[in-house]
Every structure is written in structure tokens, then in C-alpha cells.
């Protein structure tokens, strides 16, 4: 296998072969979810700590299930209501946890760069479960797995990511991952929500939804956060939804085999209409299933090697 890294911090760091390793491993591990006894002994005796500074039930639960199905001991450490509240610094908290000898620390933090800092300072493996607006690598990996499963391949596909790209770690990770796998990426949204120099990341930028999704094989809708309104980026949710929301009649002008994806949680009626979310084009729930498989694969690849 190509994977020899101690940590998974960003998609930007990975080679296509490493991404392939994760996807292949995840695919092989999917069948565990179909067993009556969802357990394999692979990570027995390994300890995985979920260090989540930002509330996130979905991602954390996904990592927890992944770890438990692999027989690892999974500990959830939610930093609100903990020493972090009492003013303990991020690095101190992480070092304290390391002193308890975990094998993997999965960290989500609202500040970009946190997991990179931990990866440098901690001996154990570090997985980035989302750092501010920077990256969310396991999300991109599960998105790639889902697309590959449905389309049979990745190279040459056209993907359009729609929404608040500026504040989206999911968008950044996917842009890096998709480009490495030979896909063409277009980002679409109001100019205020497209980050500076975005084109230089190797993507096409569009400010017209219909145009951007017309030839897409995959449309990925991003969640619009309410803070964007108060921040003066868009005038109102109503206008955003009207101009940028994916409705059923907008969908009619897309390819008949288009996939609709969303990292969740979905704001029904804002970025995506309920009919579209529940339509046969949507693979949103497959994304969730694949999330567990991908996280099992990542834990397997990181928790075994003593190469570091």
C-alpha cells in the first residue's frame, strides 16, 4: 500500500495513490456494516480519542462507530465544559491526553491549523475531523468513495460545488481531492462567498447556478450558515434560496444521471428543496454510510503502522 503517514491532516498533502488506498480499503470494509455482529478484532487494544472542540454529533458518532466496529476503545472528549473552559491551552489539553497513551487522536477545532500543530507535537496519530475553514479530509474521502461507487470511476467527471465556499472546509478538501483524482471542479456562489484567488486553486468559478450545474456529473450543495447573513455576505436567506437553492425544476436542466450530494446537515428549503433531498438523484444517505467505512479505513491505516 502507498500509505505510510503518521497523520491525516489535509487532502492537500496526499498523493492520488494514497487516496486510492483509503478508498479501496473503505470499500473492502463496507461489508462489516451488513453483518449481524458488526465487529472485527483489528484495532483491539487500541485507544482512539475524539477530541472535539466544536459540537458535532454526526462526525463524532461516525468516528465512534468506526472505531468500535474495529474493536478499538473510543473515548469522547468534548472540550466545552472541560479544562479548556478553565483556560487550558489547546496544546496543553492535547499533551495531557497524550500522556494517557492514545493511539489516535481525532480532532475537530474551529481554528484552522490546530490538527497540524498537534501532529507536530504528539507522538500518536492525528486525524483532522475539521479545522475551521481549512480542511475536513475524511469528508472529502467519503465523498470521493460515494462518487466512485455510483459512477464506477472518478477521472474525467465534472463536479460543481455550490454555496458558501469561503467558509467551507468541505469545499477545500474536496477541491484538492477531486483535482488529484483527475476530476474537473467548478465552484458556484455569490461573489461574496467565493474566497479570494479561488481560481488559482485550479477550479472554475461561476456566479450563475444554472450555467454551473448544466453539465455536472455531480452537484455538491453546501450548507448556508445563518452567520453569513449577519456578516453582510448576503442580504437575506430568502434571496439566497431563490437564486442559489437547488429546486426540482432547476434539476430538470441537469444531466439525467446527475448525483446530488450534501455534507449535511441539510437546511431543507434553503440550499436544497425537500423534494430534491428525497429524490432518487440524492446520494446524501450513501455519503453517511460511506463515512463510517472511510473512517474505519483511516483508523486502520493510521493505527497499525509503527513506522513513525
Amino acid at each position: 500500500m502507498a500509505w505510510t503517514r503518521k497523520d491525516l491532516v489535509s487532502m492537500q498533502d496526499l498523493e492520488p495513490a494514497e487516496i486510492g488506498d483509503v478508498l479501496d480499503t473503505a470499500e473492502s470494509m463496507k461489508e462489516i456494516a451488513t453483518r449481524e455482529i458488526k465487529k472485527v478484532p483489528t484495532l483491539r487494544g487500541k485507544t482512539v480519542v475524539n477530541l472535539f472542540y466544536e459540537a458535532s454529533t454526526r462526525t463524532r458518532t461516525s468516528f465512534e462507530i468506526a472505531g468500535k466496529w474495529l474493536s478499538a476503545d473510543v473515548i469522547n472528549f468534548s472540550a466545552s465544559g472541560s479544562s479548556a473552559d478553565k483556560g487550558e491551552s489547546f496544546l496543553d489539553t492535547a499533551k495531557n491526553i497524550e500522556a494517557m497513551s492514545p493511539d489516535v487522536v481525532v480532532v475537530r477545532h474551529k481554528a484552522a491549523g490546530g490538527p497540524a500543530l498537534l501532529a507536530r507535537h504528539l507522538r500518536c496519530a492525528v486525524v483532522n475531523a475539521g479545522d475551521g475553514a481549512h480542511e475536513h479530509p475524511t469528508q472529502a474521502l467519503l465523498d470521493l468513495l460515494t462518487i466512485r461507487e455510483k459512477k464506477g470511476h472518478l477521472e474525467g467527471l465534472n463536479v460543481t460545488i455550490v454555496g458558501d465556499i469561503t467558509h467551507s472546509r468541505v469545499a477545500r478538501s474536496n477541491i484538492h481531492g477531486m483535482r488529484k483524482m483527475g476530476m474537473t471542479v467548478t465552484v458556484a456562489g455569490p461573489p461574496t462567498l467565493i474566497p479570494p484567488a479561488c481560481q488559482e486553486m485550479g477550479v472554475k468559478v461561476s456566479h450563475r447556478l444554472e450555467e454551473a450545474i448544466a453539465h455536472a456529473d455531480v452537484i455538491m450543495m453546501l450548507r448556508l450558515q445563518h452567520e453569513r447573513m449577519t456578516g453582510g455576505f448576503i442580504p437575506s436567506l430568502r434571496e439566497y434560496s431563490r437564486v442559489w437553492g437547488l429546486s426540482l425544476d432547476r434539476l430538470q436542466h441537469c444531466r439525467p444521471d446527475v448525483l446530488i450530494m450534501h455534507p449535511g446537515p441539510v437546511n431543507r428549503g434553503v440550499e436544497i428543496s425537500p423534494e430534491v433531498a428525497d429524490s432518487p438523484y440524492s446520494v446524501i444517505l450513501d455519503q453517511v454510510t460511506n463515512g463510517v467505512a472511510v473512517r474505519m479505513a483511516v483508523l486502520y491505516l493510521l493505527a497499525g503502522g509503527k513506522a513513525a
Partner: protein
Amino acid sequence: MTVREKAEVLDAAGLDRALTRIGHEIVEQAGGADLALVGIKTRGETLADRIAGKIAGIEGKRPAVGALDITLYRDDLGSRAEQPQVRSTEIPFPLKGITVVLVDDVLFTGRTIRAAMDALMDLGRPRVIRLAVLIDRGHRELPIRPDYVGKNLPTSRKETVAVMLTEHDGQDRVVIQEPEENESPAGAQAGREAAAKPRRTLRKGREG
């Protein structure tokens, strides 16, 4: 690591006859009970398929065939530099109450079979598990014994046994290999570890 062929143990005809005999033995012992073959990836799967074909020829009915990847059950994970590749397990039938015959190409230390049994137990509760191997080369490290053997082959530890099958290697042959003169046993062992790869592996590299 460089090896050279020391001797051919089975040619294509010999291999085929061995599988035919194994097929008969399995059928005889099963006595009509519900039977399934589970091949251990990768070459065990191919052999299971062939044996199933033999049994179809004998009984007129082909037994169910599944494939098992034991990577997640290995006892040597975490002590290797790289994680071994995980392949998928496909057992599309219930195991409860069935006679399962595990099929593998070479039986050596027994650790692979131990892992395979653990995997099967996690997947269901077979009535009985039996073991069919093409080659038994000795040097067991665990108390595991095969029920059906193609050929017993005493070997020394530094030798390696390579099972070649048309589907994977373009020909049907079993050979014994030994390391080239200058090669130390440790070097050969390390080479075996490194050679645990799909397709063109010429020898069994799963055991530890």
C-alpha cells in the same frame, strides 16, 4: 529477494487430480449435508471455486462458494511497517447450521487458518468447520490440522512453496523455491514479508 526453483512438486495434471480427490473426500464426509466452501483470499478463493466445480460434477449440485479476506483478523498487525491491503469478504449465504470447508493453497504455521476461523465465527455459527489445503508444508505453530490435503510436503523453514494458478499466474504448478546462495534466512524471511502482494506473488506471504 532472489529465489531459485528447487523442484516442481505438482504439475498441472497432478494439481487437477489432487483437487478431484479432495472433491470426492469432501462429498463423502459430508454425507449429503448442506455444504459451503469458503476460500481464503487470494488463491484459496480460486481453489474453492475449482473444487466447487468438481463437486458439481460428482453430486450434480454445486455447493455455495464464498471468499474470505482475513487481513482484519491477523495477529501481526501493528508490528509491520505498513498496513497490509484489506480486500473484501464476500459470503453471500448464511453460515448457521452449515458444513463450511475452508480452502487455502498452502498450510504452514496455521495462523492464517486461526484468523479465518475467528472471522467465520464473527460472521455466523457454522455447524462444522473443516479445512482443505492443496499443500501442507509442516512447521505448525498452532494446533491446527487439515481435513483434506492435496499433497504433504516436508520443507525446511528457509524454503518457500509457490502455488501458481492459471487465473493468477498463467499456469498451474506448485514448486519449492530456496533463496539464492548468498541470501541469509533472515533476508529471505524479510523478503517473504515484502512479497505479501496481490496477483504476481509467487509464494504464500500471509503468515508471520
